[in-house]
């Protein structure tokens, strides 16, 4: 049995990685749940954002947080353009999975072409706060705060504003919503832009916290999909809640057994949910 301090520290890191899962899952869950598009390119955009942050900061000398602010509007535009293309070509749910996989492969090639396949690490001083016996890394903590804040803001947006309600109505029955004067197309463009902007934010934090390599694009796909399903599609609070849960359970599993057992938790959970409560999705 590991010591309490060690357990506390791993719980904390579980919380932080859970925040990242939530942040990565948020855009994915929105586009799958509300637009019926399974956007694998979300992961490619995250890493494109990470590399751009890295480049602006390491080569251009821009403060990485300022770089994120620059990237977010650009990514919003990319999201809008992607959605416009999906609408133009009437891409369905399953086709979207394949098309966005194609986009992911292209983006991966682009990243490899510009930044090579070597590992890249942004040298950014990581400051940790000492709370009792525990160390709290500030960048990770900020990421968690932003993940929760974005989820709450999205939730409020969808729940309380006209745009949000129209969006949910359109997701449930596009034809009927259109008959009531809802312009699903414009809403879809907006939502896709927001999702892509979130991937830019996530990318910035990935650059700050992790070592980058093009193949890393595929590293989190499995667990983030698990988080998205567990959190219920289209529910903006779902990914961050499920992400925190999965992150904590993973961290405990790692501390109690071995780090290599961690993936078993989220995927076993996902399989159980799919088998026992498929109607919940």
């Amino acid at each position, binding site marked *: 049995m590991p010591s309490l301090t060690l357990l506390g520290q791993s719980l904390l890191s579980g919380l932080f990685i859970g925040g990242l899962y939530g942040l990565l899952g948020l855009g994915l869950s929105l586009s799958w749940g509300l637009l019926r598009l399974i956007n694998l390119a979300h992961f490619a955009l995250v890493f494109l954002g990470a590399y751009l942050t890295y480049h602006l900061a390491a080569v251009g000398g821009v403060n990485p947080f300022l770089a994120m602010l620059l990237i977010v509007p650009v990514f919003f535009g990319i999201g809008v353009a992607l959605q416009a293309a999906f609408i133009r070509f009437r891409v369905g749910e399953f*086709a979207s999975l394949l098309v966005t996989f*194609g986009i992911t492969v292209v983006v991966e090639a682009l990243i490899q072409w510009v930044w090579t396949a070597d590992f890249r690490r942004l040298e950014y001083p990581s400051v940790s706060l000492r709370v009792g016996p525990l160390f709290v890394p500030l960048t990770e903590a900020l990421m968690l705060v932003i993940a929760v804040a974005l989820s709450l803001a999205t939730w409020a947006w969808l729940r309380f504003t006209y745009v949000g309600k129209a969006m949910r109505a359109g997701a449930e029955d596009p034809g009927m919503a259109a008959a009531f004067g809802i312009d699903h197309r414009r809403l879809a463009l907006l939502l896709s832009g927001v999702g892509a902007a979130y991937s830019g934010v996530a990318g910035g934090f990935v650059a700050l916290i992790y070592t980058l390599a093009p193949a890393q694009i595929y590293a989190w796909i499995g667990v983030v999909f698990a988080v998205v399903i567990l959190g219920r599609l289209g529910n903006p609070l779902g990914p961050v809640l499920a992400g925190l849960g999965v992150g904590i359970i993973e961290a405990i599993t790692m501390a109690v057994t071995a780090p290599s057992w961690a993936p078993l938790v989220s995927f076993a959970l996902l399989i159980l949910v799919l088998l026992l409560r498929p109607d919940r999705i």
Partner: protein
Amino acid sequence: MQPATGLVGFLVVGIALALLPALKPPAFVESFLYLIFHWIALATSWAILGGFAGYVSFGHGAFFGAGMYTTAALAATYGVPFMWTLPAAGLVAAALGVAIGAVVFRVRRLRGELFALLTLAVTFVLATIVLNTPIDGGPGVYLSGVPIPRLFGSPTTTIYVLGLGVALSSVATAWLIQRSRFGRGLLAIHDDEDVAEVLGVPTYRGKLLAFGLSCLLAGVAGGIQAIFVTYVTVAETFSITVPLFVVLMSVLGGARHWLGPAVGATFVTVLTYLFVGGEQAVLGRAVTGLTLIAVILFLPQGVVGLLPRWRRRGGPVAQPDAPAATVPEPRATPPPGPAAEPRPAAGSSPLLCCEGVRKAFAGVQALAGVSLELRAGEILGLVGPNGSGKSTLINVISGYYRADAGRILFADRNLTGQEGHRIARQGIARTYQIPRPFTRLSVLDNVALAGMFGAGALSRAAAEREARRWLTFVGLEGRAQALPAELNLHQRKFLELARALASAPRLVLLDEVLSGLTPAEMADAIALVRAIRERGATIIFIEHVMWAVLDLTDRLVVLNHGEVIAEGRPHEVVRQADVVSAYLGKPHAGR
């Protein structure tokens, strides 16, 4: 014949490739070709379930990996001769697939993306288990010490021939399946699984068999790959790129065609491995990605869809309005078969017997103990307000829903709780209120499928002959090669009728055939229903159009709130006060 050209070409290519080692090509050529074979085997085996049946698995890496690690463990750890490990690799992978399928295929909602996700999750679970147990344990498994038998010259040549063998077996399996009844059933599952089951396709067994075959081939391919790479690691074997590329290749080539995945696999492999130098490799990947995007957007049937003969058999389809539209009377001699037995006198022994059938959905009692009898040869009208349980009753009789309580007897055999396809094979067919044709099968294939899997259980050729006769019967013979989407509503309703009849049913359940039709089309439909009865079938006729009900039926049963509230001769029943009030409400100042 067209299929024969494909087969001959396939054999010629296969033999030529098998003889290639005799020319003593350099080792890298053999290795390069081996890689193509490897991906052909994986992509083609994937398409047996994913392409034909439409169950897109993202878990192909798991089954390929199971084969790889079976060979690695047996050969490297236990010293089993390499050749003996290959069948084991296939069997372990197949057993794994069948075990997973046996659980997953029972859950109706686990189709499409959810099935893809579930199989992906299985891959990661398997990877974690392999990584943390002595099968691998972390550092990977070396097979460099495993002797490769010199069956065909050098080790490279041996691997080449084995790879060719598994690739050819996969493509041949896909070819055989595509031409078989089994393959037809899989395509029907792809389009509408529930309808397929009700038409007599054993969907559960079909999916399990397809999954098992798919995994078996993938497992053998994995076993060969283990000796080819000589160093097996969890990260490489179970990475997400394996299933993604398999799907990519199949879709690129055309996943519903036996040769499609092989075409896609060759294309992608050549792009990936031909350019090995840094920048070129990046370019190759980019081209692969762009091609996938372009194919999905512009060529949804894959590259093979470009082949003219695959596009549609039988030439031009767009005949704007075939003579079909105005055929009031059935013209052809009705086909022989069980349905054409001499008509028994109405009122003899009961053909169908429902006893206290109950069915509830989350608190709503859709059927609250329905008992009714149906005599051979009669047309029983089943009426009642919307939500009274008519369609639920049909769904219970045809086996889509399982009754909570009660018994259903058909010709003195108990149908209660039987699977839909077994019920269909005993001679019960149905139509849907909103037609549900198989959208990617031609009109002819839609009808022929019912003949193959229904009570008649015909061979494919016989079923197609039969189907043509039934299409003539309903007046759709001119549209045999059209796709259902090219028909208008009443033609699609008649297609449903032809499909129901082609299964040689003794009992036909007609669910609102008349709804949405114009008066003239209704007259055609009524004439058809009469003709069906003349041929000896017994009919349950659900309808809201009252004059048609009174005109056609011998007896009437009225359902309300899941209960039979009246039964008897049509004209008498409709005058009963409770029937009138069920339909129109209670008069305000009535009493």
